């Protein structure tokens, strides 16, 4: 087992290096130039010499391979470089936003789990009844409604009926829990609904599969109460794929709330990504993409280990 963990852990690194190479190349193919964006896009006039000087300062005149080597050398020392736009370290730019994004992802996950597991279980047990259909419609709708639109409607609702708006700047949960929750609960709801739809469907189908298994039938024939069967036997086994889905969605939530963060003006990773792309801030884009990939790879690793640990049928070596 230890060997398996070590092996899986070490396997993460070649993947991340490949991601880094891919991102580096992709970013340079993007047309547009950070220097021009920074100095000219405001409508004021600036001479060519100034633009050229700034480009040299950012190291953009160096050959591409040299820029890549610089970046990689920094990475080995866990240094992601400095943002070309703000001049601050990329890790610092990300760290400020990560707190909000992580918290939002946790809250959305919590909402999703609280909704999804009971609903999905209920639908599976009462398969074919109106409850099942209602749950299915609820969850299919959740997948269909754009969460940013749900966000717009939430804001409209709050404005119209309460003449109130969630706070627009982020306060840390530890500093002022009330202000913090008042800001984040709305986007968490908008995102959590969609997320719960995915998880509900997974719970339902996984549970249905388990309920068909022999040992459950045995339990039925032994005359155990339904609640006991579902709680003690079926649900526990069905939860594994559900945990996997929730884990992967969680990883995607950290960087993928691009549009929702715009709607609620959240200072998160997604908004930073939009800004970095529109400014052609190469170093920051690279750092962010790496973070997103890392989140996914890391969650995947955890899920694999969980599977290996919980499910004796999986062999590892």
């Amino acid at each position: 087992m230890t060997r398996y963990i070590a092996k899986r852990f070490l396997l993460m690194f070649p993947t991340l290096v490949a991601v880094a190479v891919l991102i580096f190349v992709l970013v340079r193919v993007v047309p547009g130039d950070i220097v021009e964006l920074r100095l000219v896009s405001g409508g004021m006039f600036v001479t060519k010499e100034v633009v050229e000087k700034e480009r040299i300062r950012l190291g953009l005149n160096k050959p591409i391979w040299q820029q890549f080597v610089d970046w990689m050398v920094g990475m080995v020392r866990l240094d992601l470089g400095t943002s070309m736009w703000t001049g601050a370290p990329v890790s610092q730019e990300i760290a400020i936003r990560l707190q909000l994004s992580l918290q939002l992802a946790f809250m959305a996950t919590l909402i999703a789990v609280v909704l999804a597991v009971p609903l999905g279980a209920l639908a599976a047990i009462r398969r074919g009844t109106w409850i099942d259909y209602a749950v299915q419609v609820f969850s299919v709708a959740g997948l269909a409604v754009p969460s940013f639109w749900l966000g717009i409607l939430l804001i409209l609702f709050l404005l119209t009926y309460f003449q109130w708006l969630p706070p627009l700047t982020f306060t840390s949960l530890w500093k002022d829990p009330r202000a913090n929750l008042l800001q984040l609960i709305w986007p968490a709801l908008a995102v959590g609904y969609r997320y719960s739809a995915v998880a509900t469907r997974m719970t339902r189908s996984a549970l249905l599969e388990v309920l068909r298994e022999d040992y459950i039938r045995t339990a039925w024939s032994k005359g155990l109460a339904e609640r006991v069967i579902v709680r003690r036997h079926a649900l526990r086994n069905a939860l594994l794929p559900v945990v996997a889905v929730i884990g992967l969605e969680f990883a995607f939530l950290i960087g993928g709330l691009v549009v929702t963060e715009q709607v609620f003006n959240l200072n998160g990773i997604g908004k930073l990504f939009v800004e970095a792309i529109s400014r052609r801030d190469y170093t920051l884009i690279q750092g962010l993409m790496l973070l997103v990939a890392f989140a996914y790879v890391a969650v995947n690793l955890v899920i694999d280990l969980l599977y290996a640990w919980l499910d004796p049928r999986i062999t590892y070596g």
Partner: protein
Amino acid sequence: MAASITITPRAQPRPRWLGWFIRRYPLGAVAGLAILTMGIAAASATWLAPYDPLAIDFLAMFSRPGPGHWLGTDAFGRDVLSRMIFGAQTALLVGFFASLAGATLGGVIGVVSAYFGSTGDLVIQRLADILISFPLIILAMAIVAILGTGTVNLIAAIALSFVPRAEIIVRASALGIRQTPYLEAARALGAGHWRIIFRHMVPNVVAPYLVILTAFLGQAILLEASLSFLGLGVAEPTPAWGLMLSGAAVDFVQRAPWMAIFPGLAISFMVLAFNMLGDALRDALDPKLRT
């Protein structure tokens, strides 16, 4: 010579399809009907729409829904209903071509990669693994940044971000039959690679292919809306639902809520229909598959 081999791995039951499907999956059938209706509406938009979707009418800016404009007008006095009907064209166009291109390209790569195996397969798998580690929207945004905005580039960007997902699913299905005896038999009988791929492997991945295709349709429409909302998709004045939701619709949400409500409903409704049809198709074609 070997052309007479007609073994199929799994005998497909062929009841009278449509009738069976409708009886077995009423929700899917209703969704299919809804999609058909929207498709017809979009195709006949020119006759159906009460106004020219591009016509600016500064005298009718922000009109409430009423007899003149059933769903009201936007910041330019353009008829929201007409723009929504024409917007369905954009949504279906982008959704259909993006998912078709994405699923097909991914499917082809998946089958070929599964069939030939070895190093090429390994490299492709690693690449696909890397690409699926990014959320769809991030991938699509990055590709749009490279290609530029506009309807055609948007289709390409969405299609490309689907490719690794389609590839992985189709490859998994294709792998299952690669080692089966009848394929060995075909190979022993001297059938060429492409012949085997087309005659034997492709028919076996048709079911998962169709399932992911319908699943992608809904996602593509959502992606189109999100990207257009961010100003990275379809350009004004082309009518598109995501675009109708962005900018003025958000800024004026309290003054003219109909601008935000109706296009959002249209998106939700169409994606819902595609998802329900997709679910039904999946259950009918390939119950083991989860997308």
